[in-house]
């Protein structure tokens, strides 16, 4: 039972962690090679890994998808440890609109134009994105912003993620405090009353049962009572 409990907790923790890893912004240091647009037919499986149509447009089963082709600096430990090697990375560039995830991005076309102009030179750029590249399911991370940097070894401080996790911890602590207060002030007194009622009811039942039992016993043989 304890093992099951631990396994369940680990599962919840890992799922939550993966969810945050998908949704929170990350910064990559890239050299943009080119930008392109491909026609995309979503499958039932990979549809949820794409945003909806551009925020002014209407949803269709098939649509064009903006892509940004880059050479990305490899990293260890979610981008905290830099490496010298690079790898190919392709980003999609879609509006997230007013819906999930809440980046409120409406400027895909502008970002595509920026990326194209970065691609003309040979400079390094910091590309903010969320999401994963999953090759066997044709899933791309979504680019959010791009800015040119002078050297590839820039120090990036993930301010948003710092604030997010501080807020998450504070929020959980607050929720816990609220729940404890609710239990102490509303549930516990109720449970005390309910427990009292239950005790009275079961005592009454036992008394009545005793009476019935005694009456039944009068029909039995004296040595079997």
């Amino acid at each position: 039972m304890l093992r099951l409990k631990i396994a369940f907790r680990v599962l919840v923790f890992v799922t939550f962690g993966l969810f945050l890893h998908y949704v929170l912004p990350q910064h990559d240091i890239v050299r943009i090679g080119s930008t392109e647009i491909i026609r995309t037919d979503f499958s039932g499986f990979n549809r949820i890994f794409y945003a909806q149509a551009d925020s002014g447009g209407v949803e269709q089963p098939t649509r064009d998808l903006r892509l940004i082709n880059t050479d990305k600096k490899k990293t260890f430990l979610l981008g905290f440890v830099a490496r010298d090697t690079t790898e190919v990375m392709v980003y999609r560039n879609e509006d997230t609109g007013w819906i999930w995830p809440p980046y409120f991005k409406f400027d895909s076309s502008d970002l595509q134009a920026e990326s194209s102009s970065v691609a003309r030179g040979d400079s390094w750029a910091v590309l903010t994105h969320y999401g994963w590249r999953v090759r066997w399911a044709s899933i791309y991370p979504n680019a959010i912003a791009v800015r040119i940097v002078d050297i590839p070894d820039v120090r990036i401080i993930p301010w948003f993620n710092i604030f997010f996790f501080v807020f998450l911890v504070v929020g959980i602590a607050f929720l816990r405090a609220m729940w404890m207060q609710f239990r102490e002030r509303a549930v516990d007194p109720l449970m005390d009353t309910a427990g009292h009622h239950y005790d009275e009811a079961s005592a009454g039942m036992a008394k009545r049962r005793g009476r019935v039992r005694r009456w039944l016993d009068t029909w039995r043989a004296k040595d079997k009572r």
Partner: protein
Amino acid sequence: MAFVRLVVFGFLALSVIYLSVAVYSRSVRREKLEKAWAEDNPASTDMAARDAFVAKGIVDYNASYRPKLIALVYVVPTVIVAGIVYITNTN
């Protein structure tokens, strides 16, 4: 349409948060008042006086600026969303 949906559901979600925080804050204040009464009158069994003391404290609380600050639950997320919209969409 998506914007309307965001506003409606966002308002509902924030209202749930607002109500729970308001109830929580008042409950904490009530507990504090009860403890203050117990400290000042350790031997008192006069429940009517205690209830009057707590009720007066709650009236004072309702009139204070603190419950009004809870309305920030609506303001802060709106400001944050506006900030994100601005930051994401400027070059």
